[in-house]
């Protein structure tokens, strides 16, 4: 991975962004000041936090799917019914999955690791880059998600995601959970249980289930808070990003692979 020519040039981007921002500020300054005066600018999530995960693959048990089941239940994925007459193959290929279990084997040594794979909540998400409508976006607190109100279902983001983290809803959905609206024709993926975070909880369904099983392979928390458990663990132990060569700075990191 020595060829870096095809990577986005972050310095150039930052420069262009700042130039655009300065030009924008010069023209719309009165409006901006108005918004600040009304207190609208600083409501909601802030970039003072960045939510992330650290997954210890040594602790992730072979054959355990507690995280997947908990996610399905929390986000109403288990309520999606298989369309009539659809083959097993098609259903398994198309059913939505926010988190899935993977088994990776080192081809040279034969060493096997188990790990859960989901949206990696990149700092520079390719799905956001390619979205033609702005539906795929990154929240100030680092959560990458889809605004279904603007998603047109083009699936560019699914193509762009190196982690195969996104799913498309192919059929009409009759029953939903209040915290997880879902309908035919939109793309969706893990949102780090944003409804929990917005309610003040610092946990996700998968992390809770993993702890309840006694594995404690998933650690969830604020990457920017140096005192948080996850920041301490990241500092103490070696960890890596999957496809780190893409320089996406993922929010989900793995140790012992």
């Amino acid at each position, binding site marked *: 991975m020595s060829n870096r020519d095809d990577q986005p040039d972050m310095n150039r981007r930052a420069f262009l962004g700042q130039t655009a921002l300065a030009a924008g500020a010069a023209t719309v300054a009165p409006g901006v000041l108005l918004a600040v005066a009304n207190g609208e600018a600083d409501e909601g999530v802030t970039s003072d936090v960045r939510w992330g995960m650290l997954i210890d693959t040594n602790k992730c048990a072979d054959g355990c799917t507690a995280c997947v089941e908990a996610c399905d239940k929390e986000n109403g994925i288990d309520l999606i019914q298989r369309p009539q007459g659809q083959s097993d193959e098609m259903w398994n290929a198309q059913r939505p999955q926010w988190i899935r279990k993977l088994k990776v084997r080192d081809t040279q040594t034969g060493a096997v690791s188990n790990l859960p794979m989901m949206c990696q909540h990149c700092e520079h998400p390719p799905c956001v880059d390619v979205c033609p409508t702005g539906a795929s976006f990154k929240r100030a607190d680092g959560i990458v998600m889809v605004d279904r*109100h603007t998603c047109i279902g083009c699936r560019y983001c699914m193509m762009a995601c190196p982690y195969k983290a996104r799913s498309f809803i192919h059929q009409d959905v009759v029953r939903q959970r209040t915290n997880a609206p879902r309908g035919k024709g939109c793309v969706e993926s893990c949102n780090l249980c944003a409804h929990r975070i917005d309610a003040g909880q610092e946990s996700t369904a998968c992390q809770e289930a993993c702890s309840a099983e006694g594995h404690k392979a998933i650690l969830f928390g604020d990457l920017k808070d140096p005192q948080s458990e996850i920041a301490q663990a990241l500092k103490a132990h070696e960890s890596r990003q999957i496809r780190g060569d893409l320089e996406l700075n993922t929010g989900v990191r793995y140790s012992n692979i």
Partner: protein
Amino acid sequence: MRSLSGIRRIAGLLVGGALLLLTTGAISDTAVTKGSKAAGMDSCVAPTADMRRNHMDYLKHDRDRTVHKGVRDTRNSLAACIDCHAEKSEAGGYKPVNAEGQFCASCHSYVAVNLTCFQCHSTTPQGADEKVSQNAAGGAGLGLLHGMEQPLSLTRDELQRLHAKVEGN
């Protein structure tokens, strides 16, 4: 002929009076369904006339704050609409708000405005505890996407009630 026209006049007066009674009765009627939490409240988050005219804009404004900024305790949250306006069913669960005759569907089908919120959003509080699907309940068939195989039919009473609701602004 004179006596006949007198009878006609009295009959006309009676019919007129009956109609007047009917309409005044209907105007005081409300779209709020009886078995819902909203029935026990004085008003919505804004005066009724305001909500009738502007609820769609309020919802649209606050949905962006919720999705993009994570503000979930907005004044105009769809989840809160459903919490309040869903009617309890005999089975112990809730009736979908977009089922025929329920709070959202009754006006939307009258004015033939398609109700698209519930293609994605849960139609009952807490979600998914009601076994009746929205299609089975028939609510999705009305509006602009009204199917040809199910012609819209309202009884005279229903039509009058709906009319009064809309005029009631």
